[in-house]
């Protein structure tokens, strides 16, 4: 039972110190989670950098078709951020139908991103890429770094879609309000912004030039 529920159930206001951040606990909690998750991603990316610096024959295998796929993925993810913003805006205005539409679009775009990403993965696996094998003869670390970094990001996207589905369901049932949608939105934007690092570092830095 949370403080706010207690306040509501006892019928009298429990007086509290105001939060120095001026934001409710869900949102603050999400921000703190984001700080820690950013460090987790950073560790993966630094590990990739370490592997790359330490390897003697790092290849740059991505043809322009892969880069193009990456660009499309990036645009899809950025558009989903925009639709997420619209969804938050709609829930705040209490427009349920519009909110559902935008939330659905966000989930759809997230799914499209995941599908495009998995297509890329399967294409690479078909070409012989493995966590421990580089079919082009360069450093075997490439597969390890690529699949683990993008895999971590993909996990975040997929869990984000699932979380959004739960939030949307709760919102429609009246259990959740706009603040829940807004908190989920923070997570969604964060996953989007991580991609802003993953895309240049994993794709562009490995483009065959």
């Amino acid at each position: 039972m949370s403080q706010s529920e207690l306040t509501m159930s006892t019928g009298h206001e429990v007086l509290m110190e105001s939060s120095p951040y001026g934001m409710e606990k869900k949102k603050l909690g999400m921000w703190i989670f984001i700080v820690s998750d950013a460090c987790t991603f950073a560790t993966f990316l630094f590990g990739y950098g370490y592997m790359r610096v330490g390897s003697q024959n790092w290849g740059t295998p991505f043809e322009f078709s892969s880069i193009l796929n990456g660009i499309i993925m990036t645009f899809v993810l950025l558009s989903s951020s925009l639709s997420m913003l619209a969804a938050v805006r709609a829930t705040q205005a209490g427009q349920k139908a519009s909110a559902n539409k935008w939330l659905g679009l966000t989930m759809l775009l997230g799914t499209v991103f995941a599908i495009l990403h998995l297509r890329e993965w399967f294409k690479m696996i078909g070409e012989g890429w493995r966590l421990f094998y580089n079919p082009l003869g360069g450093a075997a670390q490439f597969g390890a770094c690529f699949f683990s970094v993008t895999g971590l990001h993909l996990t975040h996207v997929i869990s984000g879609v699932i979380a959004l589905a739960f939030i949307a369901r709760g919102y429609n049932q009246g259990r959740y309000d706009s603040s829940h949608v807004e908190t989920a939105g923070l997570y969604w934007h964060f996953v989007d912004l991580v991609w802003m690092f993953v895309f240049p570092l994993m794709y562009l830095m490995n483009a065959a030039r």
Partner: protein
Amino acid sequence: MSSNQELSMGSYAGIVIGLMIIVGIEVVLTYQHLSVRTLLFALLCLASLEAFVGVMYLMHVKYENRLLFWTIFPATLFVLVLLNYLWPDAYRMARMSLGR
């Protein structure tokens, strides 16, 4: 909570399109035959710019309490800066590796 309606949806769309343009610039830069070092530096700068804009506008930090800004950025940057202590050993690995 969060009645931070400072930006219209149109402005948000502008920001997202701006981010897309930055991604485009990154792609163009990639094919400019820059050295790996220069390219990395440029890409990281652009990515950081995107992240900063994203955090400030898409994630509303600009319109939240200033304390939030002064919490999340220093905490995250602290870890990011410290992880740079790994580089000397990454270069040692390349330089002193067995069979060189």
